[in-house]
Protein backbone atom coordinates (compact mmCIF):
# COMPACT_ATOMS: atom_id res chain seq x y z
CA UNK A 1 0.00 0.00 0.00
CA UNK A 2 1.44 3.35 -1.02
CA UNK A 3 -0.39 5.53 1.56
CA UNK A 4 1.39 6.65 4.68
CA UNK A 5 1.47 4.14 7.52
CA UNK A 6 -0.22 5.65 10.57
CA UNK A 7 -0.04 2.85 13.09
CA UNK A 8 2.35 0.00 13.15
CA UNK A 9 1.87 -2.55 15.87
CA UNK A 10 4.53 -5.15 16.38
CA UNK A 11 3.94 -8.27 18.45
CA UNK A 12 2.04 -6.77 21.33
CA UNK A 13 0.80 -8.97 24.15
CA UNK A 14 -0.97 -8.17 27.36
CA UNK A 15 -1.34 -10.56 30.24
CA UNK A 16 -3.71 -10.46 33.17
CA UNK A 17 -1.93 -12.89 35.44
CA UNK A 18 -1.85 -16.10 33.45
CA UNK A 19 -4.53 -15.01 31.01
CA UNK A 20 -3.32 -13.55 27.73
CA UNK A 21 -5.96 -10.98 26.81
CA UNK A 22 -3.97 -9.98 23.74
CA UNK A 23 -1.49 -12.47 22.39
CA UNK A 24 1.19 -11.48 19.88
CA UNK A 25 -0.85 -9.15 17.70
CA UNK A 26 0.77 -7.25 14.81
CA UNK A 27 -0.83 -5.07 12.15
CA UNK A 28 -0.62 -1.78 10.33
CA UNK A 29 -3.07 0.96 9.46
CA UNK A 30 -2.62 3.30 6.51
CA UNK A 31 -3.99 6.77 5.88
CA UNK A 32 -7.57 6.81 4.61
CA UNK A 33 -8.30 3.29 5.74
CA UNK A 34 -11.13 2.04 7.93
CA UNK A 35 -10.01 -1.06 9.74
CA UNK A 36 -12.63 -3.22 11.40
CA UNK A 37 -11.70 -5.13 14.50
CA UNK A 38 -14.14 -7.96 14.76
CA UNK A 39 -14.46 -10.46 17.55
CA UNK A 40 -16.93 -12.07 19.92
CA UNK A 41 -17.37 -10.67 23.41
CA UNK A 42 -14.29 -11.07 25.53
CA UNK A 43 -12.01 -11.67 22.56
CA UNK A 44 -9.61 -8.92 23.59
CA UNK A 45 -10.90 -6.14 21.33
CA UNK A 46 -11.25 -3.53 24.05
CA UNK A 47 -7.91 -4.41 25.61
CA UNK A 48 -6.33 -4.00 22.20
CA UNK A 49 -7.97 -0.59 21.70
CA UNK A 50 -6.83 0.53 25.14
CA UNK A 51 -3.27 -0.49 24.40
CA UNK A 52 -3.30 1.36 21.09
CA UNK A 53 -4.42 4.56 22.78
CA UNK A 54 -2.00 4.37 25.68
CA UNK A 55 -4.65 3.60 28.30
CA UNK A 56 -2.93 0.30 29.05
CA UNK A 57 0.69 -0.59 28.65
CA UNK A 58 1.37 -3.77 26.68
CA UNK A 59 3.28 -6.50 28.51
CA UNK A 60 5.59 -6.64 25.51
CA UNK A 61 5.74 -5.40 21.94
CA UNK A 62 6.03 -2.06 20.20
CA UNK A 63 3.53 0.47 18.88
CA UNK A 64 4.41 3.35 16.63
CA UNK A 65 1.92 6.11 15.91
CA UNK A 66 2.90 8.14 12.84
CA UNK A 67 6.45 6.96 13.42
CA UNK A 68 6.47 8.00 17.11
CA UNK A 69 6.93 5.27 19.69
CA UNK A 70 3.89 5.28 21.99
CA UNK A 71 5.83 4.00 24.99
CA UNK A 72 8.87 6.25 24.66
CA UNK A 73 7.12 9.50 23.74
CA UNK A 74 3.55 9.02 24.91
CA UNK A 75 2.65 12.67 24.83
CA UNK A 76 3.59 13.28 21.19
CA UNK A 77 2.07 9.98 20.11
CA UNK A 78 -1.19 10.52 21.98
CA UNK A 79 -1.66 13.89 20.31
CA UNK A 80 -2.21 11.96 17.06
CA UNK A 81 -4.99 9.77 18.44
CA UNK A 82 -8.63 10.30 19.24
CA UNK A 83 -10.26 7.58 21.31
CA UNK A 84 -13.85 6.74 22.05
CA UNK A 85 -13.90 3.99 24.70
CA UNK A 86 -16.72 1.51 25.05
CA UNK A 87 -18.36 3.80 27.56
CA UNK A 88 -18.03 7.42 26.44
CA UNK A 89 -15.87 9.30 28.99
CA UNK A 90 -18.24 12.15 29.76
CA UNK A 91 -18.54 14.60 32.62
CA UNK A 92 -22.27 14.54 33.05
CA UNK A 93 -22.52 17.70 35.11
CA UNK A 94 -21.17 19.83 32.25
CA UNK A 95 -23.00 21.08 29.19
CA UNK A 96 -21.97 19.85 25.75
CA UNK A 97 -20.18 23.12 24.99
CA UNK A 98 -18.31 23.20 28.29
CA UNK A 99 -17.28 19.59 27.89
CA UNK A 100 -16.01 20.00 24.33
CA UNK A 101 -14.18 23.18 25.32
CA UNK A 102 -12.45 21.23 28.08
CA UNK A 103 -11.50 18.46 25.63
CA UNK A 104 -10.16 21.02 23.17
CA UNK A 105 -7.95 22.51 25.89
CA UNK A 106 -6.80 19.07 27.03
CA UNK A 107 -5.63 18.37 23.51
CA UNK A 108 -3.72 21.64 23.44
CA UNK A 109 -5.65 23.27 20.63
CA UNK A 110 -4.51 26.85 20.32
CA UNK A 111 -6.83 29.40 21.87
CA UNK A 112 -7.65 31.08 18.58
CA UNK A 113 -8.48 27.72 16.96
CA UNK A 114 -10.78 26.48 19.69
CA UNK A 115 -13.99 28.20 18.60
CA UNK A 116 -13.82 27.02 14.95
CA UNK A 117 -12.83 23.52 16.10
CA UNK A 118 -15.87 23.39 18.39
CA UNK A 119 -18.22 24.58 15.67
CA UNK A 120 -16.79 22.09 13.22
CA UNK A 121 -17.19 18.98 15.40
CA UNK A 122 -20.63 20.04 16.55
CA UNK A 123 -21.73 20.42 12.98
CA UNK A 124 -20.16 17.08 12.02
CA UNK A 125 -21.71 15.15 14.85
CA UNK A 126 -25.08 16.90 14.64
CA UNK A 127 -24.77 18.54 18.05
CA UNK A 128 -25.58 22.15 17.11
CA UNK A 129 -28.98 22.08 18.77
CA UNK A 130 -27.85 20.61 22.10
CA UNK A 131 -24.75 22.72 22.84
CA UNK A 132 -26.29 24.36 25.89
CA UNK A 133 -27.80 21.21 27.38
CA UNK A 134 -26.38 19.14 30.19
CA UNK A 135 -24.78 15.92 29.00
CA UNK A 136 -26.61 14.07 31.74
CA UNK A 137 -29.97 14.98 30.20
CA UNK A 138 -29.10 13.84 26.68
CA UNK A 139 -30.25 10.55 25.21
CA UNK A 140 -27.79 7.70 24.82
CA UNK A 141 -27.46 8.41 21.12
CA UNK A 142 -26.53 12.03 21.69
CA UNK A 143 -24.11 11.08 24.45
CA UNK A 144 -22.44 8.72 22.02
CA UNK A 145 -22.15 11.55 19.51
CA UNK A 146 -20.59 13.79 22.14
CA UNK A 147 -18.12 10.95 22.72
CA UNK A 148 -17.26 10.86 19.03
CA UNK A 149 -16.98 14.66 18.90
CA UNK A 150 -14.52 14.46 21.78
CA UNK A 151 -12.41 11.93 19.84
CA UNK A 152 -12.14 14.03 16.67
CA UNK A 153 -11.98 17.56 18.07
CA UNK A 154 -8.22 17.87 17.62
CA UNK A 155 -8.34 16.35 14.12
CA UNK A 156 -6.15 13.41 15.01
CA UNK A 157 -4.50 11.30 12.34
CA UNK A 158 -6.08 8.21 13.88
CA UNK A 159 -9.52 7.74 15.35
CA UNK A 160 -10.11 4.65 17.49
CA UNK A 161 -13.74 3.78 18.18
CA UNK A 162 -14.61 0.96 20.54
CA UNK A 163 -18.10 -0.39 19.82
CA UNK A 164 -19.53 2.99 18.85
CA UNK A 165 -23.03 1.78 18.00
CA UNK A 166 -23.86 -0.26 21.08
CA UNK A 167 -27.18 0.70 22.61
CA UNK A 168 -28.32 2.99 19.80
CA UNK A 169 -31.54 2.79 17.84
CA UNK A 170 -31.42 1.83 14.14
CA UNK A 171 -31.63 5.40 12.85
CA UNK A 172 -28.83 6.56 15.13
CA UNK A 173 -26.77 3.53 14.12
CA UNK A 174 -27.16 4.47 10.49
CA UNK A 175 -26.09 8.05 11.16
CA UNK A 176 -23.06 7.00 13.15
CA UNK A 177 -22.00 4.54 10.46
CA UNK A 178 -22.26 7.30 7.90
CA UNK A 179 -20.13 9.50 10.11
CA UNK A 180 -17.54 6.76 10.44
CA UNK A 181 -17.35 6.34 6.67
CA UNK A 182 -16.83 10.10 6.33
CA UNK A 183 -14.11 10.06 8.97
CA UNK A 184 -12.39 7.30 7.02
CA UNK A 185 -11.82 9.67 4.13
CA UNK A 186 -9.45 11.94 6.07
CA UNK A 187 -8.33 9.99 9.10
CA UNK A 188 -7.27 6.44 9.68
CA UNK A 189 -10.08 4.77 11.59
CA UNK A 190 -10.03 1.67 13.75
CA UNK A 191 -13.45 0.38 14.60
CA UNK A 192 -14.03 -2.42 17.03
CA UNK A 193 -17.32 -4.24 17.01
CA UNK A 194 -18.96 -7.60 17.33
CA UNK A 195 -21.56 -6.79 14.69
CA UNK A 196 -20.64 -8.26 11.35
CA UNK A 197 -22.81 -6.11 9.04
CA UNK A 198 -21.34 -3.01 10.61
CA UNK A 199 -17.90 -4.02 9.42
CA UNK A 200 -19.24 -4.93 6.00
CA UNK A 201 -20.87 -1.55 5.67
CA UNK A 202 -18.09 0.71 6.84
CA UNK A 203 -14.70 -0.99 6.65
CA UNK A 204 -12.22 -1.58 3.88
CA UNK A 205 -10.18 -4.06 5.77
CA UNK A 206 -11.12 -6.42 8.53
CA UNK A 207 -9.26 -8.23 11.25
CA UNK A 208 -10.83 -10.92 13.32
CA UNK A 209 -9.56 -11.44 16.82
CA UNK A 210 -10.41 -14.44 18.91
CA UNK A 211 -9.09 -15.27 22.36
CA UNK A 212 -6.48 -12.56 22.02
CA UNK A 213 -5.06 -13.78 18.73
CA UNK A 214 -5.52 -12.34 15.26
CA UNK A 215 -7.09 -15.16 13.28
CA UNK A 216 -7.95 -13.34 10.07
CA UNK A 217 -6.72 -10.17 8.43
CA UNK A 218 -7.72 -9.29 4.90
CA UNK A 219 -9.72 -6.98 2.67
CA UNK A 220 -13.44 -6.96 3.20
CA UNK A 221 -14.13 -8.49 -0.26
CA UNK A 222 -12.28 -11.60 0.73
CA UNK A 223 -14.36 -11.91 3.85
CA UNK A 224 -17.50 -11.46 1.76
CA UNK A 225 -16.37 -14.27 -0.50
CA UNK A 226 -15.88 -16.51 2.50
CA UNK A 227 -19.34 -15.67 3.68
CA UNK A 228 -21.21 -16.35 0.50
CA UNK A 229 -24.49 -18.00 1.01
CA UNK A 230 -24.29 -21.71 0.51
CA UNK A 231 -27.59 -22.82 1.93
CA UNK A 232 -31.29 -21.97 1.68
CA UNK A 233 -34.20 -22.89 3.86
CA UNK A 234 -37.35 -23.97 2.01
CA UNK A 235 -40.79 -25.07 3.16
CA UNK A 236 -43.68 -26.59 1.22
CA UNK A 237 -47.35 -27.18 1.87
CA UNK A 238 -47.12 -30.53 0.07
CA UNK A 239 -43.51 -31.51 0.52
CA UNK A 240 -41.98 -33.77 -2.11
CA UNK A 241 -39.82 -36.73 -1.40
CA UNK A 242 -36.37 -35.85 -0.21
CA UNK A 243 -34.86 -37.79 -3.08
CA UNK A 244 -36.66 -35.56 -5.59
CA UNK A 245 -35.06 -32.47 -4.08
CA UNK A 246 -31.70 -34.12 -4.03
CA UNK A 247 -32.01 -34.78 -7.76
CA UNK A 248 -32.31 -31.11 -8.69
CA UNK A 249 -29.18 -29.91 -10.40
CA UNK A 250 -26.94 -27.69 -8.27
CA UNK A 251 -28.06 -29.04 -4.92
CA UNK A 252 -25.32 -30.84 -3.09
CA UNK A 253 -27.15 -32.01 -0.05
CA UNK A 254 -30.62 -31.84 1.47
CA UNK A 255 -31.27 -31.82 5.17
CA UNK A 256 -34.82 -32.42 6.37
CA UNK A 257 -35.53 -30.18 9.33
CA UNK A 258 -39.07 -31.40 9.94
CA UNK A 259 -42.05 -32.56 7.87
CA UNK A 260 -42.28 -29.41 5.75
CA UNK A 261 -38.98 -27.66 6.17
CA UNK A 262 -35.76 -28.46 4.40
CA UNK A 263 -32.30 -27.01 4.34
CA UNK A 264 -30.67 -27.07 0.92
CA UNK A 265 -26.90 -26.89 0.67
CA UNK A 266 -25.56 -25.83 -2.69
CA UNK A 267 -22.55 -24.36 -4.46
CA UNK A 268 -21.73 -20.68 -4.71
CA UNK A 269 -23.76 -19.76 -7.78
CA UNK A 270 -27.10 -20.94 -6.41
CA UNK A 271 -28.11 -22.15 -9.87
CA UNK A 272 -30.67 -24.53 -8.44
CA UNK A 273 -33.28 -21.86 -7.71
CA UNK A 274 -34.84 -21.68 -11.20
CA UNK A 275 -35.07 -25.43 -11.49
CA UNK A 276 -36.53 -25.72 -8.01
CA UNK A 277 -39.18 -23.08 -8.69
CA UNK A 278 -40.22 -24.62 -12.03
CA UNK A 279 -40.55 -28.05 -10.55
CA UNK A 280 -42.40 -26.75 -7.50
CA UNK A 281 -44.95 -25.00 -9.70
CA UNK A 282 -45.40 -27.89 -12.06
CA UNK A 283 -45.88 -30.44 -9.32
CA UNK A 284 -47.89 -28.22 -6.93
CA UNK A 285 -45.56 -28.49 -3.92
CA UNK A 286 -46.92 -25.23 -2.61
CA UNK A 287 -43.68 -23.37 -1.86
CA UNK A 288 -44.19 -21.13 1.17
CA UNK A 289 -40.65 -20.11 2.06
CA UNK A 290 -37.30 -19.69 0.38
CA UNK A 291 -34.80 -18.02 2.68
CA UNK A 292 -31.07 -17.61 2.14
CA UNK A 293 -29.20 -18.58 5.30
CA UNK A 294 -26.51 -16.08 6.22
CA UNK A 295 -23.53 -17.27 8.09
CA UNK A 296 -23.30 -15.82 11.54
CA UNK A 297 -20.11 -14.38 12.92
CA UNK A 298 -19.74 -17.42 15.11
CA UNK A 299 -19.89 -19.73 12.10
CA UNK A 300 -17.23 -17.68 10.37
CA UNK A 301 -15.04 -17.95 13.43
CA UNK A 302 -15.54 -21.66 13.46
CA UNK A 303 -14.80 -21.78 9.73
CA UNK A 304 -11.68 -19.70 10.00
CA UNK A 305 -10.32 -21.30 13.10
CA UNK A 306 -11.06 -24.85 11.98
CA UNK A 307 -9.51 -24.14 8.60
CA UNK A 308 -6.39 -22.96 10.34
CA UNK A 309 -6.28 -26.06 12.44
CA UNK A 310 -6.59 -28.20 9.29
CA UNK A 311 -3.83 -26.18 7.75
CA UNK A 312 -1.65 -26.72 10.79
CA UNK A 313 -2.32 -30.44 10.67
CA UNK A 314 -1.39 -30.56 7.00
CA UNK A 315 1.84 -28.79 7.72
CA UNK A 316 2.59 -31.06 10.59
CA UNK A 317 1.97 -34.15 8.45
Amino acid at each position, binding site marked *: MSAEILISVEHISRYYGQLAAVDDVSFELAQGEVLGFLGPNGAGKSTCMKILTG*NLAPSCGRIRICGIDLLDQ*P*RQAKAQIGFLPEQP*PLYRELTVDEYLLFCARLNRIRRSHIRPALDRVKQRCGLEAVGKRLINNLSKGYQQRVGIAQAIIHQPAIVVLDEPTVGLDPIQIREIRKLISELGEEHGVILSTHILPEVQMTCKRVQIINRGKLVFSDDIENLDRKMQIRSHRVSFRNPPDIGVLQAIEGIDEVEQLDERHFCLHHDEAARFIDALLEQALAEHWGLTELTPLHKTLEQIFVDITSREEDHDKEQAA
Partner: protein
Amino acid sequence: MITTLAQRELRSLFLSPLAWSVLAVVQFILAYLFLSSLNDYILLQPQLKMLDNAPGATALIIAPLYGSTAFILMMVVPLLTMRLISEERRNQSLSLLFSAPLSMTEIILGKFLGVVGFLVIMVLLVSLMPLSLLLAGQLDNGHLAALLLGTLLLVGAFAALGLFMSSLTEQPTVAAISTFGALLLLWIVDWAGNKVGSETTGSLLSYLSILRHFESFSRGVFNSSDIVYYLLFISLFIVLSIRRLDADRLQN
Protein backbone atom coordinates in the same frame (compact mmCIF):
# COMPACT_ATOMS: atom_id res chain seq x y z
CA MET B 1 -2.64 22.38 31.07
CA ILE B 2 -2.64 21.85 34.82
CA THR B 3 -4.79 24.94 35.20
CA THR B 4 -7.30 23.59 32.68
CA LEU B 5 -7.69 20.45 34.76
CA ALA B 6 -7.85 22.44 37.99
CA GLN B 7 -10.47 24.76 36.55
CA ARG B 8 -12.67 21.88 35.51
CA GLU B 9 -12.32 20.27 38.91
CA LEU B 10 -13.30 23.49 40.64
CA ARG B 11 -16.16 24.03 38.25
CA SER B 12 -17.53 20.53 38.79
CA LEU B 13 -17.32 21.06 42.55
CA PHE B 14 -19.40 24.21 42.31
CA LEU B 15 -21.86 22.51 39.98
CA SER B 16 -22.70 20.03 42.72
CA PRO B 17 -24.72 20.99 45.77
CA LEU B 18 -22.01 19.42 47.95
CA ALA B 19 -19.61 22.34 47.63
CA TRP B 20 -22.25 24.93 48.43
CA SER B 21 -23.62 23.07 51.43
CA VAL B 22 -20.11 22.47 52.76
CA LEU B 23 -19.31 26.17 52.45
CA ALA B 24 -22.56 27.13 54.15
CA VAL B 25 -22.30 24.68 57.03
CA VAL B 26 -18.63 25.41 57.76
CA GLN B 27 -19.20 29.15 57.63
CA PHE B 28 -22.21 28.91 59.92
CA ILE B 29 -20.50 26.84 62.59
CA LEU B 30 -17.35 28.94 62.54
CA ALA B 31 -19.37 32.15 62.70
CA TYR B 32 -21.09 30.82 65.80
CA LEU B 33 -17.74 29.98 67.42
CA PHE B 34 -16.30 33.33 66.37
CA LEU B 35 -19.18 35.29 67.83
CA SER B 36 -19.17 33.38 71.10
CA SER B 37 -15.42 33.90 71.62
CA LEU B 38 -15.81 37.54 70.66
CA ASN B 39 -18.47 37.81 73.33
CA ASP B 40 -16.20 36.16 75.91
CA TYR B 41 -13.42 38.55 75.00
CA ILE B 42 -15.66 41.58 75.50
CA LEU B 43 -16.74 40.25 78.91
CA LEU B 44 -13.14 39.58 79.91
CA GLN B 45 -11.79 42.89 78.72
CA PRO B 46 -11.96 44.73 82.10
CA GLN B 47 -9.87 42.03 83.78
CA LEU B 48 -7.42 41.87 80.86
CA LYS B 49 -6.75 45.56 81.30
CA MET B 50 -5.37 44.88 84.78
CA LEU B 51 -2.75 42.45 83.47
CA ASP B 52 0.69 43.42 82.29
CA ASN B 53 1.41 42.10 78.82
CA ALA B 54 -2.14 40.77 78.37
CA PRO B 55 -2.93 38.60 75.34
CA GLY B 56 -4.67 40.59 72.59
CA ALA B 57 -7.68 39.88 70.45
CA THR B 58 -5.62 37.97 67.90
CA ALA B 59 -4.45 35.40 70.42
CA LEU B 60 -7.79 35.10 72.21
CA ILE B 61 -10.26 35.15 69.36
CA ILE B 62 -8.54 34.48 66.10
CA ALA B 63 -6.11 31.71 67.02
CA PRO B 64 -8.91 29.51 68.46
CA LEU B 65 -11.00 30.27 65.38
CA TYR B 66 -8.32 28.87 63.07
CA GLY B 67 -7.86 25.94 65.42
CA SER B 68 -11.55 25.13 65.02
CA THR B 69 -11.28 25.65 61.27
CA ALA B 70 -8.49 23.08 61.12
CA PHE B 71 -10.52 20.60 63.14
CA ILE B 72 -13.69 21.03 61.06
CA LEU B 73 -11.79 20.84 57.79
CA MET B 74 -10.29 17.55 58.90
CA MET B 75 -13.81 16.18 58.71
CA VAL B 76 -14.86 18.09 55.60
CA VAL B 77 -11.83 17.65 53.31
CA PRO B 78 -12.35 13.87 52.94
CA LEU B 79 -15.81 14.62 51.53
CA LEU B 80 -14.34 16.95 48.95
CA THR B 81 -11.41 14.79 47.90
CA MET B 82 -13.20 11.44 47.86
CA ARG B 83 -14.49 11.67 44.33
CA LEU B 84 -11.38 13.17 42.72
CA ILE B 85 -10.16 9.99 41.09
CA SER B 86 -12.40 7.22 42.35
CA GLU B 87 -15.50 8.65 40.71
CA GLU B 88 -13.74 9.16 37.40
CA ARG B 89 -12.55 5.62 37.60
CA ARG B 90 -16.08 4.41 38.25
CA ASN B 91 -17.58 6.48 35.41
CA GLN B 92 -14.69 5.38 33.21
CA SER B 93 -14.04 8.99 32.31
CA LEU B 94 -10.43 8.59 33.37
CA SER B 95 -9.66 7.29 29.88
CA LEU B 96 -10.37 10.77 28.53
CA LEU B 97 -7.39 12.02 30.51
CA PHE B 98 -5.27 8.96 29.75
CA SER B 99 -5.84 9.32 26.00
CA ALA B 100 -5.11 13.03 25.95
CA PRO B 101 -1.52 14.17 25.56
CA LEU B 102 -0.99 14.59 29.32
CA SER B 103 1.42 13.09 31.80
CA MET B 104 0.19 11.46 35.00
CA THR B 105 1.92 14.26 36.92
CA GLU B 106 -0.17 16.86 35.16
CA ILE B 107 -3.37 14.95 35.86
CA ILE B 108 -2.62 14.60 39.58
CA LEU B 109 -1.37 18.16 40.01
CA GLY B 110 -4.41 19.48 38.17
CA LYS B 111 -6.75 17.61 40.46
CA PHE B 112 -4.81 18.61 43.56
CA LEU B 113 -4.77 22.28 42.65
CA GLY B 114 -8.47 22.16 41.80
CA VAL B 115 -9.45 20.97 45.23
CA VAL B 116 -6.88 23.20 46.94
CA GLY B 117 -8.40 26.13 45.06
CA PHE B 118 -11.72 25.31 46.63
CA LEU B 119 -10.18 25.02 50.09
CA VAL B 120 -8.43 28.37 49.66
CA ILE B 121 -11.77 29.96 48.86
CA MET B 122 -13.21 28.40 52.00
CA VAL B 123 -10.34 29.56 54.23
CA LEU B 124 -10.52 33.07 52.80
CA LEU B 125 -14.25 33.20 53.48
CA VAL B 126 -13.56 32.18 57.06
CA SER B 127 -10.82 34.82 57.28
CA LEU B 128 -13.31 37.56 56.48
CA MET B 129 -14.61 37.21 60.04
CA PRO B 130 -11.35 38.09 61.85
CA LEU B 131 -10.67 40.77 59.25
CA SER B 132 -13.98 42.38 60.16
CA LEU B 133 -12.42 43.17 63.56
CA LEU B 134 -10.20 45.67 61.77
CA LEU B 135 -13.24 47.93 61.63
CA ALA B 136 -13.16 48.18 65.42
CA GLY B 137 -9.48 48.09 66.22
CA GLN B 138 -6.01 46.76 65.55
CA LEU B 139 -4.89 43.18 64.96
CA ASP B 140 -1.50 41.50 65.20
CA ASN B 141 -0.93 41.20 61.44
CA GLY B 142 2.08 38.92 61.73
CA HIS B 143 0.19 36.50 63.93
CA LEU B 144 -2.76 36.55 61.55
CA ALA B 145 -0.48 35.85 58.56
CA ALA B 146 1.13 32.92 60.37
CA LEU B 147 -2.30 31.49 61.18
CA LEU B 148 -3.45 31.87 57.60
CA LEU B 149 -0.31 30.26 56.20
CA GLY B 150 -0.46 27.43 58.72
CA THR B 151 -4.11 26.73 57.92
CA LEU B 152 -3.45 26.69 54.18
CA LEU B 153 -0.52 24.32 54.56
CA LEU B 154 -2.58 22.11 56.84
CA VAL B 155 -5.53 21.84 54.45
CA GLY B 156 -3.09 21.29 51.58
CA ALA B 157 -1.75 18.30 53.48
CA PHE B 158 -5.31 17.06 54.10
CA ALA B 159 -6.07 17.37 50.39
CA ALA B 160 -2.91 15.53 49.31
CA LEU B 161 -3.73 12.61 51.59
CA GLY B 162 -7.34 12.61 50.39
CA LEU B 163 -6.23 12.61 46.76
CA PHE B 164 -4.02 9.61 47.38
CA MET B 165 -6.80 7.70 49.13
CA SER B 166 -9.11 8.49 46.23
CA SER B 167 -6.60 7.10 43.77
CA LEU B 168 -6.59 3.77 45.61
CA THR B 169 -10.22 2.87 45.24
CA GLU B 170 -13.24 2.92 42.99
CA GLN B 171 -15.67 3.75 45.81
CA PRO B 172 -15.76 7.41 46.87
CA THR B 173 -17.13 6.53 50.31
CA VAL B 174 -14.23 4.16 50.96
CA ALA B 175 -11.84 6.95 50.01
CA ALA B 176 -13.64 9.35 52.36
CA ILE B 177 -13.61 7.09 55.39
CA SER B 178 -9.97 6.06 54.88
CA THR B 179 -8.90 9.66 54.50
CA PHE B 180 -10.77 10.64 57.63
CA GLY B 181 -9.29 7.71 59.56
CA ALA B 182 -5.76 8.50 58.45
CA LEU B 183 -6.12 12.20 59.24
CA LEU B 184 -7.59 11.52 62.66
CA LEU B 185 -4.77 9.12 63.43
CA LEU B 186 -2.18 11.68 62.39
CA TRP B 187 -4.02 14.26 64.50
CA ILE B 188 -3.93 12.25 67.69
CA VAL B 189 -0.74 10.27 67.21
CA ASP B 190 1.18 12.48 69.67
CA TRP B 191 -1.28 11.76 72.49
CA ALA B 192 0.38 8.39 72.78
CA GLY B 193 3.71 10.11 72.17
CA ASN B 194 3.67 11.60 75.67
CA LYS B 195 3.03 8.27 77.32
CA VAL B 196 5.35 6.01 75.38
CA GLY B 197 8.32 5.12 77.56
CA SER B 198 11.31 5.84 75.40
CA GLU B 199 12.21 9.40 74.62
CA THR B 200 12.93 8.88 70.90
CA THR B 201 9.67 7.05 70.10
CA GLY B 202 7.77 9.75 71.88
CA SER B 203 9.42 12.55 69.99
CA LEU B 204 9.12 10.67 66.69
CA LEU B 205 5.38 10.18 67.21
CA SER B 206 4.91 13.80 68.14
CA TYR B 207 6.97 14.85 65.13
CA LEU B 208 4.59 12.87 62.90
CA SER B 209 1.54 14.55 64.35
CA ILE B 210 -0.04 16.80 61.81
CA LEU B 211 -1.46 18.98 64.59
CA ARG B 212 1.80 19.52 66.47
CA HIS B 213 3.23 21.41 63.52
CA PHE B 214 0.18 23.62 63.39
CA GLU B 215 0.60 24.68 67.01
CA SER B 216 3.61 26.88 66.40
CA PHE B 217 1.72 28.72 63.67
CA SER B 218 -1.19 29.23 66.03
CA ARG B 219 1.19 30.80 68.57
CA GLY B 220 2.28 33.12 65.77
CA VAL B 221 5.67 31.45 65.35
CA PHE B 222 6.89 31.13 61.81
CA ASN B 223 9.02 28.00 62.01
CA SER B 224 10.60 26.86 58.76
CA SER B 225 10.86 23.24 59.91
CA ASP B 226 7.07 23.13 60.21
CA ILE B 227 6.70 24.49 56.71
CA VAL B 228 9.11 21.86 55.45
CA TYR B 229 7.08 19.19 57.24
CA TYR B 230 3.89 20.19 55.41
CA LEU B 231 5.61 20.57 52.06
CA LEU B 232 7.20 17.12 52.45
CA PHE B 233 3.86 15.66 53.48
CA ILE B 234 2.14 17.14 50.43
CA SER B 235 4.86 16.07 47.99
CA LEU B 236 4.96 12.55 49.40
CA PHE B 237 1.28 11.93 48.81
CA ILE B 238 1.31 13.60 45.42
CA VAL B 239 4.15 11.39 44.27
CA LEU B 240 2.37 8.33 45.65
CA SER B 241 -0.81 9.30 43.78
CA ILE B 242 1.11 9.69 40.54
CA ARG B 243 2.65 6.27 41.02
CA ARG B 244 -0.70 4.76 41.80
CA LEU B 245 -2.34 6.24 38.72
CA ASP B 246 0.51 5.04 36.55
CA ALA B 247 0.04 1.56 37.96
CA ASP B 248 -3.49 1.59 36.52
CA ARG B 249 -1.99 1.69 33.09
CA LEU B 250 0.71 -0.87 33.73
CA GLN B 251 -1.08 -3.70 35.48
CA ASN B 252 -4.54 -3.91 36.99
